[in-house]
């Protein structure tokens, strides 16, 4: 995931702004009321009324991500996200008028989606409609902006992927785990050169293909009334031509039949390794079992991997399991940094022992209750954030129906030990594993 502004980096460590994208990934369940309507041009609009806040959020999700890029133009969806702030056809500056009415914005691009959001005092919500609708209508396509943002994104590439210990892991792991599907490249792109070569022609073509009402979902939340939102949506968004519906037809990833391994040696202080297993897509009926399985393995200090591998056997100084929650076939990741002096073979064998255990024995009722209880409280806590509610409404609408947000918890509660057992058996198979060894050059 890449953001317009990197809010939680060291630079802004004393700021608390713009960390929403991270939180958003962690919050799964909500009870959120909403109203929904569709404009004649195909734009889906959802409204969540919340009068406990003086603020409003306008969130717009475009159904386009890095998976929709050409293989020789990777990193483009994200570069394009930056260009969305370079002025639109009638409004030379996007950020300035928004800040002038007390608003803030940010955006992020993932392999699946591009999401833009504004928070501002609810009384000034029309400014958000004005800004967002104009850039959906058309951009300014300024050469200066393209040149600058190419540089900015290249610096982002360096800051987050090249100039950090282990920063390039995903640039290596993705092409190991995927051979055909566009998930084989990271959101930031395969290399700096492809970003440097992006042309204005590419920018215009990408806009035409993906940025229109039919490919977008608009959510307005906060201290607003649905009737007012309808009026504003008609006024600002209805005149935008419908454009073409983008029909996604991506290459399918063939079933992996043999174990893949790759070794990287770099100037890092510790040996690390990363295992990637294929897992079902986000809309699959078994998805929730995988998510809870990752929780049992790795959520918090009561989790299996933390206790067995870090505390008891002391093989790792850091160990995590998580899922990528992808719209197409995703990944179940296990990553760890080895304790000093521990042999890679021993560490890897111990991880496999844990995976074999969860594949051969059902998880206990206590473990299952624990991760479900945790899920329930996350749901209640998540309702405290307006922006999280708005983003999730948009995302669930993309999945098929925003109402799914309110019934998601039931899918989690319906997971039993047998379902997790099935998921584990199917997943943790050596022939379907891609392992990246990241070794320190000190003892390579």
């Amino acid at each position, binding site marked *: 995931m890449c953001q317009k502004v990197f809010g939680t980096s060291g*630079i802004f460590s004393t700021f608390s702004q713009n960390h929403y994208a991270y939180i958003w990934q962690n919050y799964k369940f909500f009870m959120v009321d909403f109203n929904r309507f569709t404009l004649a041009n195909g734009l889906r609009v959802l409204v969540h009324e919340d009068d406990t806040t003086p603020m409003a959020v306008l969130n717009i999700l475009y159904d386009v991500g890095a998976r929709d890029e050409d293989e020789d133009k990777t990193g483009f969806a994200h570069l394009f996200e930056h260009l969305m702030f370079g002025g639109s056809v009638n409004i030379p500056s996007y950020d300035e008028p928004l800040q002038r009415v*007390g608003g803030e914005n940010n955006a992020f691009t993932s392999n699946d989606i591009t999401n833009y959001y504004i928070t501002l005092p609810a009384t000034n919500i029309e400014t958000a409609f004005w800004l967002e609708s104009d850039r959906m209508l058309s951009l300014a396509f300024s050469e200066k902006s393209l040149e600058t943002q190419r540089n900015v994104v290249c610096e982002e590439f360096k800051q987050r992927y090249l100039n950090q*210990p282990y920063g390039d892991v995903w640039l290596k792991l993705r092409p190991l785990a995927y051979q055909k599907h566009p998930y084989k490249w990271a959101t930031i792109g395969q290399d700096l050169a492809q970003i440097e070569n992006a042309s204005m022609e590419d920018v215009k073509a990408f806009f035409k293909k993906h940025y229109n009402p039919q490919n977008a979902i608009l959510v307005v939340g906060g201290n607003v009334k649905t009737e007012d939102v309808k009026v504003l949506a008609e006024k600002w968004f209805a005149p935008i031509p419908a454009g073409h519906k983008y029909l996604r037809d991506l290459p399918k990833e063939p079933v992996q039949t043999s174990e893949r391994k790759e070794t990287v040696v770099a100037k890092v202080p510790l040996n690390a390794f990363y295992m990637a297993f294929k897992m079902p897509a986000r809309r699959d009926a078994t998805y929730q079992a995988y998510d809870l399985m990752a929780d049992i393995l790795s959520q918090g200090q*009561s989790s299996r991997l933390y206790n067995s591998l870090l505390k008891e056997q002391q093989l790792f100084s850091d160990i995590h399991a998580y899922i990528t929650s992808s719209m197409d076939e995703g990944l179940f990741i296990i990553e760890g940094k080895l304790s000093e002096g521990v042999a890679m073979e021993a560490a890897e064998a111990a991880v496999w022992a844990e995976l074999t255990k969860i594949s051969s024995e059902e998880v206990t009722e206590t473990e299952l209750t624990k991760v479900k209880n945790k899920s329930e409280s996350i749901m209640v806590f998540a309702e405290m954030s307006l922006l999280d509610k708005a983003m999730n409404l948009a995302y669930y609408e993309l999945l098929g129906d925003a109402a799914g947000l309110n019934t998601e918890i039931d899918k989690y509660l319906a997971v039993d030990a047998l379902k997790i057992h099935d998921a584990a058996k199917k997943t943790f198979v050596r022939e379907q594993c891609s392992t990246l060894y990241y070794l320190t050059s000190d003892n390579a």
Partner: protein
Amino acid sequence: MLDRTLIPESKQVNEINFISPQKQELDNGIKVFTVNAGKQELVRIELVFENVNWKESTPLQAIAVSHLINNGTKTLSARQIADQVDYYGAFLQTDYGADQSSIKIYTLNKHLAAVLPILWSVLNESIFPQQELDIFKQNQQQSLKVSLQKNDFIARKNFANAIFGNSAYGSNIEVEDYQAIQRAELTTYFSAAYKPENCTIFVAGKFEEPEFNILNGIFGKEWSNKDASVINHFSFDSSVTGEIFIERPEAIQSAIRMGFRSINRTHADFPAFQVMNCLLGGYFGSRLMANIREDKGYTYGIGSAIVSMKDSGYFFIATEVGADVCSSALNEIEKEISLLKSELVSDEELDLVRNYMLGSMLGSLENAFSHADKFKNIYFSGLSYDYYDNYIKTVKSISPEELKALANQYLNTEEFTKVIVGKK
């Protein structure tokens, strides 16, 4: 026909309402400040302890205690604590800050009575098992080694040490400091710091009389820890100023961090300083961002901030820039600062900053938690809500002349500490 070139009408934020907490006391005298708000059946309870007994020779004692406090008590193992907290869907978080350490529990109200006894055991019966300490030492050393490969981390560490020396604010922690931690330091620190006289409780969420009674029943009685302590206070002489260049020949970006020890929230100029900071580097549209990112494309991000601590404060500008443009970026930073000192900000730009800051303040009061956090800021600075009134008044009324004078008074780049890590 819709004219999209016309900006819709808007209003400046007029009213910002703060929820001030209710003050109560537990039977043993611990102060409890409660923001009882929100629709959800949940609560956050935070117990805050002043950091005490600072010793340069054992700079990690408070940090290690904060990390390990939930790793084993007389009655519960580390695993049991984690299991039980997770079982109830609660979150137990320990935080170490430069002035205070805190332990927070987030829970649904229905589990409050079940989780508070775990927290009580943690705060009264922690034993800091040797094995847990050994794991902590090993893993912290490893994680520090990783951080020490990051230019930005090195810049931050050296900057803090240059302006705050070997105080808790600037202590230049090395791998060896972790190796040196002894278990006895931790138990001693725990007995002195984690006691009712040194504790303040902040509650946010749904919290009424029945919940207060549960809290008082458990935490209002006598605690185990009673040892004498001295609350940390720091005073500072001069900083190490000028350029500190740490070369890393393979860097493709350089980290820059520059600034100085400054006033904190208790100073009358603080709100005005925040306006000046916002203008310079405090938001996306700031001058530093507009010039160095949006015009030149030298960086992914640049910003500045003023930070308030109990006994001091600091102002800094930070960025990571392409190694080849490091000197150019430094020149542009200098240029932006001298512009603030030599030219009056236009009404147009200042209005924008005013509106942005007011909207941002309004937006930062999202829920009961944020109201409690706002209160904590002023409480630990010894201030009242007048501080926020004054802040809002300053944002609305400060003049270009005052800002220029302020820049001349405070932003003397020849006295800055400038840390550059990478290449230049």
